[in-house]
């Protein structure tokens, strides 16, 4: 059974005098125990709002409507009262945020910010809590943890801050960890370290991880299953390998096409997606991606595209998907981390367009190297 089952989640903000914004518009996905799931999309596609809605952290404001279900271990998180939600947060589900500096309280020492979780959920106090906090900092790779406990966020480097935030998140060994762009604000080399740390923590403790990112490199290195979001809805779901080998939704194709690759030929151009996320069609009137889509046909408009389930548990929401890259399903045990020669896996029967779209793996990151 799935650990977290998000079903038809929708979040809309209604403002006086302005039209209602549907930030999340029917997102569904599941996370199994110990699984690493990616939520990928451009900024503004609703991935962060999705995570905040699951955590119940959306700022309370008039006009905010949250619909659908988010069932965690049998209980619908969206139906819980404030108290029970606070009990679950930090203990069973924890979250890591994007900007470690602004996410830490600037006027309180790191130590207290770690121990307060221990006090709240594990009833630890005084020396015991301090000792455990030091161990946690040590576990996330912060050197000299005893001294760091007394320091303030501004005295730590960006990477150390993010490690401290991670320590707070894993303090109670949660069953689900949600990481919202955990590396976006960091230097590339630090990014790799943090991702490595997250991977280790997840592997060691069996914690499930929802990785929210716009960075396909992060996804390629970590995720078991990937959900691609566009306009507040999941447009494609697939295991990692099939997704990179043969993306079916034109948006996924576009995302992959926008990433520079090491294995690209010289002079080969990147293919950016025209326009921005704001130019979208309401899902009720057709495919939200249609205005920017290169494979747009008449059928894209009029009614929302149905979710098409394909082999291998993958599904996509498109009436005119990119053709599969190979005649045979992507069962070949290719290490997705290793650079893939597109020509090797392409069926000669496939169209040229598929060749350019399929089989792409973004530049491998440092931590991927054996």
């Amino acid at each position, binding site marked *: 059974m799935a650990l977290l089952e998000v079903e038809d989640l929708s979040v809309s903000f209604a403002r006086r005098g302005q039209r209602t914004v549907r930030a999340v518009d029917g997102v569904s996905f599941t996370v199994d125990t110990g699984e690493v799931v990616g939520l990928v999309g451009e900024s503004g596609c609703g991935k962060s709002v999705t995570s905040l809605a699951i955590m119940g952290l959306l700022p309370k404001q008039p006009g905010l409507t949250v619909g659908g279900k988010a069932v965690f271990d049998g209980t619908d998180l969206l139906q819980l009262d404030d108290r029970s939600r606070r009990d679950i947060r930090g203990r069973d589900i924890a979250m890591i945020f994007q900007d470690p500096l602004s996410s830490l309280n600037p006027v309180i020492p790191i130590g207290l910010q770690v121990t307060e979780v221990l006090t709240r959920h594990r009833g630890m106090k005084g020396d015991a809590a301090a000792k455990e906090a030091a161990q946690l900092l040590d576990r996330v790779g912060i050197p000299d943890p005893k001294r760091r406990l007394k320091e303030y966020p501004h005295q730590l480097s960006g990477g150390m801050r993010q490690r401290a935030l991670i320590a707070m998140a894993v303090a109670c060994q949660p069953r689900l960890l949600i990481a919202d762009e955990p590396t976006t604000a960091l230097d590339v080399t630090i990014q790799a370290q943090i991702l490595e740390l997250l991977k280790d923590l997840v592997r060691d403790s069996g914690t499930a991880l929802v990785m929210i990112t716009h960075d396909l490199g992060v996804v390629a290195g970590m995720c078991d299953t990937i959900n691609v979001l566009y306009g507040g809805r999941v447009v494609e779901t697939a295991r990692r390998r099939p997704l990179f080998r043969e993306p079916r939704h034109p948006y996924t194709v576009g995302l992959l096409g926008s990433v520079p690759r090491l294995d690209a030929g010289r002079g080969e151009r990147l293919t950016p997606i*025209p*326009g*921005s996320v704001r*130019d*979208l*069609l309401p899902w009720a*009137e*057709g495919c939200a991606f*249609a*205005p*920017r889509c290169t494979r*747009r046909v*008449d*059928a*894209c*408009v*009029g*009614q929302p595209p149905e979710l098409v389930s394909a082999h291998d548990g993958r599904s996509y929401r498109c009436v005119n998907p990119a053709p599969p890259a190979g005649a045979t399903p992507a069962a070949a045990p290719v290490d997705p981390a290793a650079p893939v020669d597109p020509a090797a896996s392409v069926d000669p029967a496939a169209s040229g367009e598929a060749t350019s779209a399929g089989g792409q793996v973004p530049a491998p990151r440092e931590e991927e190297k054996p």
Partner: protein
Amino acid sequence: MTIISGKKREKIDRLAELAAREDERGVSLWQDAFRRLRRNPAAIVGAVILAIFVLVAIFGPFFVPYGPKDTMGIREGVVKVGQGLIPGPSSEHWLGYDHQGRDVFSRMIIGARQTLLVGVVATLIGLALGALIGGVAGAAAGLGGRWGRMVDATLMRFIDMLLALPSLLLAVSIAALLGPSLITVMIAVGMVSVPIFARLLRGSMIVQSNKEYVLASTSLGVSKSRIALAHVLPNSLAPVIVQATLTLATAIIEAAALSYLGLGNPDSSVPEWGVMLADAQPWLGIRPALAIYPAVAIIITALGFTLLGEAMREALDPKLRK
């Protein structure tokens, strides 16, 4: 396959076209601020109060029923202060008589003009002097170098000295220096706001000098003094203008305080709200309304300036812009 209506297709095409184009919309700070100002109910209330006040101040004195010096109440024998007789509102005298038998309504209307005059002139004095000192200090700090830093430091020390003086004391001693008069009140109240304006403009200019566009202009070879005058200064003015609006409110209140201390215009034949309020103090027991009219007028006017000023501050705050 569904059939697409022509309208839908049109919409798609329009969106596709939009998507292909770069985002061109760019609204200037001031336009944007003004647009948000119009949407803010507090700003509207403030503006309406001020509009009424200014209209009354400008045109009111032409339509008043009685002269401000006409002590008709005593002449007609209806006002007998000694017996505690100061008649209240009637159909002829809407706000009644004051202790000298003059028509309060007429004096209130004419007083509006004097009050506006005091507030505006005092603020202008403070603004001009403060902006001069702050602008020179800010420009000097921006130019840098030994001389620039020295000029800046000297001017700021001077401002610190002014700040260390209790403001009312400053005003009182100025009033003592010049003798009680309306001009004294204006200068005294204006002087008090000099350090505020100076610090504000200097701080704002220093913030602007560190912005990237200044670096960009420098790298294009624009002269330093030109950058200070043509770029830094205009971009630093927003908080100063907001402060000027807010200062108008405090100026009117402080002018009233000086009048109360007996430093205002000794010639009470030219009515001013602060003076009227001060004059009414001895008669509070008999007719408290004599103090309440000018007090309420002062409070409402100050409220108008404050509302508008605060709304402007909000509208110009880049943090709140979207």
